[in-house]
């Protein structure tokens, strides 16, 4: 059994391309060409070169000694926080901007929640001198002012999404509407392993550089390519997909996906999609989705804007349904504490998204000689205000 996408664009029951006909030419063009383009030598060369010299890859696989001692196991942190722009998001935007160029597109649109993907998109557009429009929920624009300023400094136009609940899902709707209105010259750089096929697979492939590096690095450090556990937080699921990618079909590696419980899974203020979601369609993909009995998409909640999405990528929905992945949900409170703990133990300030992944060590025991790799998906600079408020710093 494979946990990769099949030729119809499905991961088990999940995935597909549930798109209005207006998007068909663009999505179909991408679907029919993305694999060929990604395999071109010239594409690979440019992609690798930029990852190395611009993003700063490979990122270190760091043995967190004091953290490991505290939890009596062996924890490695994959330092995606050291990427240019401060998170793994840029691996995908570098790949997609090169894709867009080869598709002959000269205008880029993107959605963003916390602003990390928006910044990563604005960055690569500046790098390539391409017009960039980022949709962001009106409420998020107020919550994430520094990232809005960053995008503007990088030359992007930030458009407030004023429809619906005015957060990430609505920003995504607006980006899709823009694409419908601009079907010829525009490429949509989606920010996670979500959306219609081939997006989940394409984004996962761009992010797969993470586990490609981990394999090599772990070989050097532990004399084996595969850890016992891989752990990542899941919003849409792109940093998780990147870390799991080369281990998906190696069932000796336990996959742990960490979702945001918000104030608690059953409080009505949560973003724990695997626990609360049912099969549904969001943004062109059949996946697990938080919704009412009547099929209206509901608004999730998490203290971390990057995990505040009512769906999850179809790869992860399949990992959940098949039992291949172990899903754990972490509350705001638990994540904030784990974030601060990492600062004190290792001198690393993690993004609050990432702090969710770190918080599982207080809930779940690992054996002393087990090797656990955690994707340290981003740094916490963008979250300072939340940390300050939460801990009265």
């Amino acid at each position, binding site marked *: 059994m494979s946990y990769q996408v099949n030729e119809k664009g499905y991961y088990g029951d999940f995935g597909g391309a549930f798109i*209005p*006909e207006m998007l*068909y*030419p663009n999505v179909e063009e991408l679907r029919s060409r993305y694999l060929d383009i990604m395999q071109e030598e010239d594409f690979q060369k440019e992609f690798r070169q930029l990852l190395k010299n611009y993003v700063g890859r490979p990122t270190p696989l760091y043995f967190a000694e004091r953290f490991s001692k505290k939890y009596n196991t062996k924890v490695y942190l994959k330092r995606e926080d050291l990427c240019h722009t401060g998170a793994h998001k840029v691996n995908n935007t570098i790949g997609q901007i090169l894709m867009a160029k080869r598709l002959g597109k000269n205008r880029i649109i993107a959605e963003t929640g916390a602003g990390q993907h928006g910044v990563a998109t604005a960055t690569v557009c500046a790098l390539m001198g391409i017009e960039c429009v980022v949709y962001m929920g009106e409420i998020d624009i107020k919550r994430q002012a520094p990232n809005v300023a960053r995008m503007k400094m990088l030359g992007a136009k930030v458009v407030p999404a004023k*429809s619906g609940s005015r957060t990430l899902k609505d920003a995504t*709707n607006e980006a899709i509407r823009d694409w419908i209105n601009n*079907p*010829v010259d525009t490429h949509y750089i989606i920010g996670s392993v979500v959306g219609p096929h081939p997006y989940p697979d394409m984004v996962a492939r761009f992010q797969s550089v993470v586990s490609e590096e981990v394999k090599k690095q772990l070989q050097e450090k532990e004399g084996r390519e595969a850890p016992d556990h891989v752990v990542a937080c899941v919003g849409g699921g792109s940093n998780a997909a990147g870390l799991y990618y080369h281990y998906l079909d190696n069932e000796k590696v336990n996959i742990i996906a960490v979702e945001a419980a918000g104030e608690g899974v059953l409080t009505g203020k949560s973003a724990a999609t695997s626990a609360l979601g049912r099969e549904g369609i969001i943004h062109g993909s059949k996946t697990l989705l938080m919704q009412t009995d*009547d*099929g209206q998409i509901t608004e999730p909640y998490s203290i971390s804007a990057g995990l505040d999405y009512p769906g999850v990528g179809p790869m992860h929905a399949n990992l959940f349904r098949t039992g291949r992945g172990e899903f754990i949900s972490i509350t705001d409170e638990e994540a904030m504490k784990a974030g601060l703990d990492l600062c004190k133990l290792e001198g690393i300030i993690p993004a609050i998204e990432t702090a969710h992944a770190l918080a599982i060590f207080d809930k779940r025991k690992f054996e002393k000689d087990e090797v656990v790799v955690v994707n340290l998906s981003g740094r916490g600079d963008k979250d300072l205000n939340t940390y300050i408020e939460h801990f009265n710093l």
Partner: protein
Amino acid sequence: MNRIKQKLQENPSKKLLSIYFTAGYPEPEDTVSILLELQNSGVDMVEIGLPFSDPLADGPVIQRSSEAALKSGMTTTRLFNQLENNREAIDIPLLIMGYFNPILQYGVEKFCRKCSEIGIDGLIIPDLPLEEYQLQYKEIFQQYDLLPVFLITPQTSEERIKEIDSASDGFIYMVSTAAVTGGKKGFGEEQKKYFHRVSKMGLKNPLIVGFGIKDRETFQQATAETNGAIIGSAFIKQLNDHGTSGISNFIKTIR
């Protein structure tokens, strides 16, 4: 015989006027009275919009009507209840136009069965494209004699138009412009060429144009070489301005 097919066959040269409105808007219980008013005004066919929280092919007017309908308690079940036992009074073809997720939640089979029980003739599901329809849902639609209506756009290739034509058995929904619903621009040379090009393809299904039709002029432009047109946002806008009592006057301004 399915009422859509009957309507299309009884007078093939007539330019059909079809109206879209969002179920449960302006008020949750307006559905049936709007349908009766439309029928009495001479409208040929109606698309009843199933409100959805995330209507990604729709512009602001339809978005807001959906939001308002949901807020005031509109649901799929409520719509079905409203339509029950009204098929004697309303004999024009009725379609439901809605996004796929609420239908999936209701249960596709159960939804189709219910539609057929209350006399729905066809379904327009913008985010259920041909491929996914054929992969999983075709048999169910056929079992309940519901016509699937697929969209084409100015960017749709000839090859795909032909594919859609052969999978369709009612009419093809011709999206006028590369835009979400509620476009304000009117039609220019580009649209005329597109209407002309597709109408000359010799398709077996009639063409009905939607998106951006708002008045007599755009209705006439859209139907010059096609079989009819659908008015959505402009109709909802008139509901906003004049309520349900303005319906027959609005229809008179169109044809």
